[in-house]
């Protein structure tokens, strides 16, 4: 009886180890993520290209960002991805709000949701001016 359980347990254990090994192996194979080439993504734009009437939709690393000039040369960089279902937001110049074309969600110019399905605010990016360039970074 003891022999039977021992051998069967060893056999079972071996099979379980193999199955576990294959799981680990599959996991590490399938979860390869293309490492982002830029460790700290940042984007430089000449400031003459941004004006209150002409904001820019740029990409910082892999993320889409709206770069807007407010009155008085104050720039803000806010994520352009709606926190509801990831659609790209549009900027309404007159009312100074972000509007999502998918479900008509609205964010104010700081990125706070004020109407519609979205409940989480938009991510803000760091902006600083250097000479006549604007640098946006994560």
């Amino acid at each position, binding site marked *: 009886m003891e022999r039977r359980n021992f051998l069967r347990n060893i056999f079972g254990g071996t099979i379980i180890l193999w199955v576990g090994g294959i799981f680990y*192996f*599959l996991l*590490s*194979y*399938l979860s*390869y993520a293309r490492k982002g080439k830029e460790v700290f993504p940042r984007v430089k734009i000449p400031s003459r290209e941004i004006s209150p009437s002409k904001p820019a939709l740029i990409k910082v690393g892999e993320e889409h960002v709206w770069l807007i000039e407010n009155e008085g040369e104050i720039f803000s960089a806010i994520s352009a991805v709606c926190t509801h279902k990831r659609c790209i937001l549009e900027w309404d110049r007159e009312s100074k709000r972000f509007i999502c074309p998918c479900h008509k969600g609205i964010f104010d110019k700081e990125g706070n949701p004020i109407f519609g399905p979205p409940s989480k605010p938009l991510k803000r990016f760091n902006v600083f001016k250097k000479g006549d360039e604007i640098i946006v970074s994560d």
Partner: protein
Amino acid sequence: MSPIKKIIKWLEERINLTEIFSFFSAFGLYYGEIDTKDSIEEALKKASIKELPPYGKWPHVLGILTFLLFVFQIITGMLLAFYYQPTLLSAYESTREIIRDISFGWLIFNIHRWGADLLIIILIFRIARFFYHQVWEKPRELFWIIGIAILIVSMGSFLTGKLLPFDQNSYWSTVRNLEIIEKIPLIASIFNFLVGGFLIEEGTIIRFYFLHIVVFPLLLWILFYLHFSTVRRVGLSALELKKEEKITFYPSHLFSLLTATFIIIFILVTLSVFFSFRLMGKADPLKTPSGTGPSWFMLFLIPVIEYIPWGLGGFLVLLLLILLFLFPFFGERIFRSKTLTKVLTFFFVFLYLILSFWGFRIK
């Protein structure tokens, strides 16, 4: 009642488990016929005590090996498909990523590559031994025909897969392979239709890819199923066995299968580590590297096609192929004597090797 038994009872009231078991076993797990009217417990019990000739022994082991290798190819192929991109622009880069950057990617790629080579070798071996043991005699004609079909479709799979990494070696050996196939009359037209011409361009890769991961594997699954089906009906050929040793399905056969699986894993992994395949740089249609030629099992066709004048070489090959397929229907009349077949087997194998070496020299 143990929890497993409870689950099985619950399932059996709702679905015919024996039918599902017979479906799975149709692909080689079990070589007998299963009566789907039995309950699963009875079916399993009958299966476990069913007596079989010792398959683990030579020469039937070739069949099991083929199927196991095929399963390995399917599994590694699926894993590769997660990362491979079949476009002109990124085929090479995605393959390089698999081999160089992804953890264990090199292992999967090499297993797939070596598995393909081994599969073709074993299939050729099988045909030779079918001939040797006269396995085309009634009632095994279908067995033979399906065996030849499996070999041809596997070769097609190999050739279409060869192009996919799109490095210098793949590209140019595919060009040479296509050049040979172009000269065989009927096959060339079928190929032309399937692949869309004999030039390698953007559309070619996608078609090759589709053939390689959908069409040929599906065909092979069907052929394997038919192959097993005919064995289930006629039984395996009884050879002059040294010991009339019958074994039961459980535990002997099942565990032999398990052992065989591990041995195959061992061989494939060892080959992958010691004889890794190297990428030879991105395919450059303007620059042919020296030393490339067609795939090794196509080499024997080169002398036949080159040295028989007036394009008759291609016709000869086609004739040979048709004869191979229809062999059981006239073979019995010609090859009655057993010693003749045995001698002829060696002669054909020898001829194949000589032609291959000749092809290698003049490639």
